[in-house]
């Protein structure tokens, strides 16, 4: 499966180009609309589908079942903080889901290094990285999964 663009909807804004982790969404030079330049490299991550403000991007199903009328479409409403999905099955059954957007705002979790204590010359030369060992939180007992909680009948 891979993404494709409805040309009548796309206005060439470039949101999909910016967000694509595989860097395959480009702006076509002739028609100035977004285009998936390498469908085989599409991860089907839906990032561009969700980012598109005009709902111009869709994901193509495999050829054997796509003609039978399934669809998976998404509407992202930033101002409400919601992301809604509509799954349409081949037998006509529909399912709708609404979830909160969990993307963190840009820069919120960047460590504030400028306000931290400056390392001295010995600490810089040391093999231990900044904020180690405190930052690793290794003084406590390391987390472990008790073997009893594993599924019965499965051997590890």
């Amino acid at each position, binding site marked *: 499966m891979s993404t494709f663009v409805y*040309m*009548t*909807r796309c*206005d*060439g*804004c*470039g*949101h999909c*180009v*910016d967000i694509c982790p595989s860097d395959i969404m480009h*702006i076509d*030079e*002739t*028609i*100035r609309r977004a285009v998936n330049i390498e469908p085989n490299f599409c991860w089907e991550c839906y990032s561009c589908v969700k*980012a598109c*403000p*005009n*709902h111009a991007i869709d994901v193509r199903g495999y050829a054997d079942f796509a003609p039978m009328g399934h*669809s998976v*479409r*998404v*509407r992202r*409403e*930033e*101002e*409400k*903080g*919601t*992301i*809604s*999905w*509509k799954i*349409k099955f081949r037998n006509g059954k529909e399912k*709708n*889901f*609404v*979830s*909160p*957007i*969990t*993307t*963190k*705002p*840009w820069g919120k979790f960047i460590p504030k290094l400028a306000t931290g204590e400056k390392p001295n010359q010995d600490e810089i030369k040391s093999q231990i990285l900044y904020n180690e060992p405190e930052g690793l939180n290794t003084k406590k007992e390391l987390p472990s999964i008790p073997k009893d909680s594993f599924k019965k009948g499965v051997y590890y």
Partner: protein
Amino acid sequence: MIYNNPFSILSETIPSIAIQSFLILMVGLALAGTLVDIIHKKNVKYFFENAKKAKLSATRELGVRERASVIVKTVAYDIGTTSELGAGKRRVAHLLGMYGTILFWIASAVMIFCYSSSSSGTPLAWPIIWHIGASMTILGGCWFWFFLRVDVYSEAHPWYRIIKADLFVLALIATSLFGLIWSYLQSLNLNDRWDDKVFLVLYIVSNLVLFGGVYWSKFAHMFYKPGAAIQKNLAEADGSRDNLPPEADAPKKFGLGIKREAPKHY
């Protein structure tokens, strides 16, 4: 200059009927180009097939009045303000170019058909609209060309690199620019000096390129885009929504509601 009707001055040397025939030829070229485009790309066929498919998944039937109200709202808001471009520089540049071109073309048609003889006095408004329209088109077009053009920044192409996609915007800028220069030279009363004629020829050639190149350029988007916007809003109204989920009926602070960063290079 701004109060002069350039076509009435031109009619002293070229008969009005020839000027009017040229305008009709331009309209014919635009229509023919669009028709060939429709037949070759089959986009209108796809559009209607898609609309038919969408109608099957409609949850309610729209009445004539409701349908008309959706179309009027789409024309007034989506098309009239090019809302799909968001609130950014692209939209301002597009609006300048769009309304500039509309004013320029309407004023040209009125002045050519109603006031093109040297004896008829042109109301002051029409030449002013013609000149303002041309200036707005140049401003919007150049803004797009130098600052917003796709791939100028992201692909590191220089601004003077021209590709087929630039045919429409360049022809539009050239038509308005040569028209303005020709009008200015006419207002100087140069008594048939060579430069007046050169810019008239350039104005004619740029018009031929603009209207004759419809098949190869982006010209036809001004017909397709309104159609697509109307179909989109009708699909929202009848519940088919192109299979998209309905707008979320979400409680307050359901999610973070972040404002994402807009792409700067397009």
